[in-house]
């Protein structure tokens, strides 16, 4: 029977199927971090349970780490306590931890692939909704809650109901200046912030094949913003070449054997999806969100919508509330919206190629007066490499702050937050109320759009700029 990519991996990991309901699925990789794991370890301890497979569990600190110098102690006492708890838990249960002092520390969804821990054909879970990122390698990867973290620690399995399957088929070339972020935001706009709920999304089509691994990660990362817990892309030679030689990836002949298997991981001709969405990439413009869900987004050439344009009364009210929160008037051209802050980073857009692209826009230019702009690399490895390649210098010379890695202003758990009313062009993934700080106003954009906004002091259509 013809199978989808998702079904091939799924079937391979089912341990036990209840008559009606969920399956017990084996977990190949369990990533943990300081914020959603402490209560899970506490639960284990109370029940006197062990960690079943510490060798398949990897930990990092990312959510509340400061992005200022690592040589000074963490000033936030509660954050420090959480990090200390992770350190203690990992030591006690024999789990590899990439702590603040590790050269491999970084955002969990950046370091997993970087270290070759994320591989095609695996099941991967983490107590973080953006775990969908790892699906870019052709794995089933999804976010879980803390009770599930505890369950996976204790059993290396998870009870999960098989989701429905949606294919998003993208054809056509992305224009110069239009990125995977813009593609993802247009998909979210099309299917809605809850349109993917209950589904796993496989991204397919020539455009998706043409994306780099970093771009595929951006696309899969944002699946959850459409409600889909999991997004994935069939592995190909790009995937295999990306992984070859990575720290924890299989070595030599083991790698080649694995690669042979990975090449078989694709949806068969005639396999059936529950839903199909087709996207033409060629007309997509750079996207800018104007509201408080990622689906409230429009072209940079567009204007802030009027609530009256929305027929559904609940939606209309939501738009009214969003515009009030965002301090925006209907009809305002997007390019007239001024920004106070710019954030380049996060598990969505904090990889080396994101910083490279942004640096090209920034090179030889200056951050606009009154704008505070910040680059937070996705990992310490990204940071080092960006420094070696001269990107850090370009950003600093233009007036950007150059920070240590972490989730930082994407969710504002550390000191990197917006003041009430401040408006930010951000390469992160959520523009929810207060996400980047109470009262803060977030506009989601691509790294090159954020870079251009930093220089111009307002949103601009980056397609009109020269950068190479």
């Amino acid at each position, binding site marked *: 029977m013809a199978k989808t990519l998702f079904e091939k991996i799924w079937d391979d990991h089912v341990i036990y199927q209840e008559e009606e309901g969920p399956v017990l699925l084996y977990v190949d990789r369990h990533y943990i971090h300081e914020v959603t794991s402490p209560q899970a370890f506490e639960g284990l301890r109370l029940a006197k349970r062990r960690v079943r497979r510490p060798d398949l569990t990897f930990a990092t600190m990312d959510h509340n780490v400061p992005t200022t110098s690592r040589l000074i102690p963490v000033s936030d006492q509660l954050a420090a306590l959480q990090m200390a708890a992770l350190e203690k838990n990992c030591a006690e249960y024999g789990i590899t931890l990439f702590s603040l002092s590790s050269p491999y520390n970084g955002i969990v969804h950046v370091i997993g692939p970087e270290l070759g821990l994320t591989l095609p054909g695996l099941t991967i879970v983490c107590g973080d909704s953006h775990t969908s990122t790892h699906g870019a390698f052709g794995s089933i990867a999804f976010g879980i809650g803390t*009770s599930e973290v505890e369950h996976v620690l204790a059993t290396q399995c998870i009870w999960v109901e098989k989701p429905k399957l949606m294919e998003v088929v993208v054809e056509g070339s992305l224009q110069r200046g239009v990125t995977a972020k813009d593609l993802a935001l247009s998909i979210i706009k099309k299917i809605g912030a809850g349109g993917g709920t209950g589904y796993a999304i496989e991204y397919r089509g020539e455009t998706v094949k043409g994306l780099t691994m970093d771009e595929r990660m951006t696309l899969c990362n944002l699946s959850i913003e459409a409600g889909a817990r999991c997004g994935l892309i069939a592995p190909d030679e790009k995937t295999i070449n990306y992984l070859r030689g990575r720290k924890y990836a299989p070595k030599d002949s083991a790698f080649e054997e694995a690669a042979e298997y990975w090449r078989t991981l694709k949806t068969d001709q005639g396999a059936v999806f529950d839903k199909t969405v087709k996207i033409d990439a060629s007309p997509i413009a750079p996207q800018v969100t104007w509201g408080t869900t990622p689906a409230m987004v429009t072209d940079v050439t567009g204007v802030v919508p009027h609530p009256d344009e929305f027929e559904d009364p609940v939606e209309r009210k939501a738009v009214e509330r969003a515009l009030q929160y965002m301090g925006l008037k209907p009809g305002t051209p997007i390019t007239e919206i001024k920004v106070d802050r710019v954030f380049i980073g996060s598990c969505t857009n904090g990889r080396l190629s994101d910083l490279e692209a942004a640096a090209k826009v920034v090179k030889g230019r200056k951050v606009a007066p009154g704008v505070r702009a910040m680059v937070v690399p996705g990992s310490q490895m990204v940071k080092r490499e960006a420094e070696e390649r001269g990107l850090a210098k370009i950003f600093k010379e233009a007036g950007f702050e150059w920070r240590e890695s972490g989730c930082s202003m994407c969710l504002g758990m550390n000191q990197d937050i917006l003041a009430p009313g401040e408006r930010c062009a951000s390469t992160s993934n959520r523009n929810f109320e*207060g996400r980047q700080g109470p009262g803060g106003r977030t506009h989601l954009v691509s790294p090159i759009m954020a870079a251009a906004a930093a220089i111009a002091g307002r949103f601009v259509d980056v397609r009109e700029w020269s950068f190479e």
Partner: protein
Amino acid sequence: MIHPFKTFTGLVAPLDKDNVDTDQIIPKQFLKLIERKGFGNYLFFNWRFDERGEPRSDFILNQQKYKKASILVSRANFGCGSSREHAVWALLDYGIKTVIAESFADIFYNNAYKNGLLLITLKPEEVDEIIRKATENTLYLTVNLEEQKVLEQNGAEYRFEIPKFIKERLLAGLDEIGNTLKHESKISEYESRMKRMRPWAIPAKPTKKAPQSS
């Protein structure tokens, strides 16, 4: 270990919005606690309290009428966004035992039942009706999970669907890990099969070579 879910009658508070995300249910500044309790004080913090920490009179749970609510009714995609289970802990700790909505986000849905919070999905027109009644009057509903019914005192009745396994687990209040460990031999079998079939899936011994990021 969760407590078995029992039939109860509770006051309904309407939260008339789509896409209530977990960042609103429990803002990030409260995720630094390392225990499961005490989150109720911070439920909907930025909606409940202003910059000075004073209650915002326009927020539903601050209105005298709804102070004792134990049932929340909202619209589509409730609980979207971050996977933080703290959102469920905050609702329960505050005293919310059931959330009724048109739809729920996937991760939130799982987090909820694992802690004994019952989520009830009703049709948009039923949600409309409940929101209207709870807004215009004081509405009490009886939630009966066994019979999959929500009942109004005057007789109005809403039937709901719920996956059988979730219903069973909520009613029994099972220890899920304990339950899974009953399948221990199957897990071990799978692991030895996996070691043979997919040896590469076990992380390799790390190489010492210089780190790379791209």
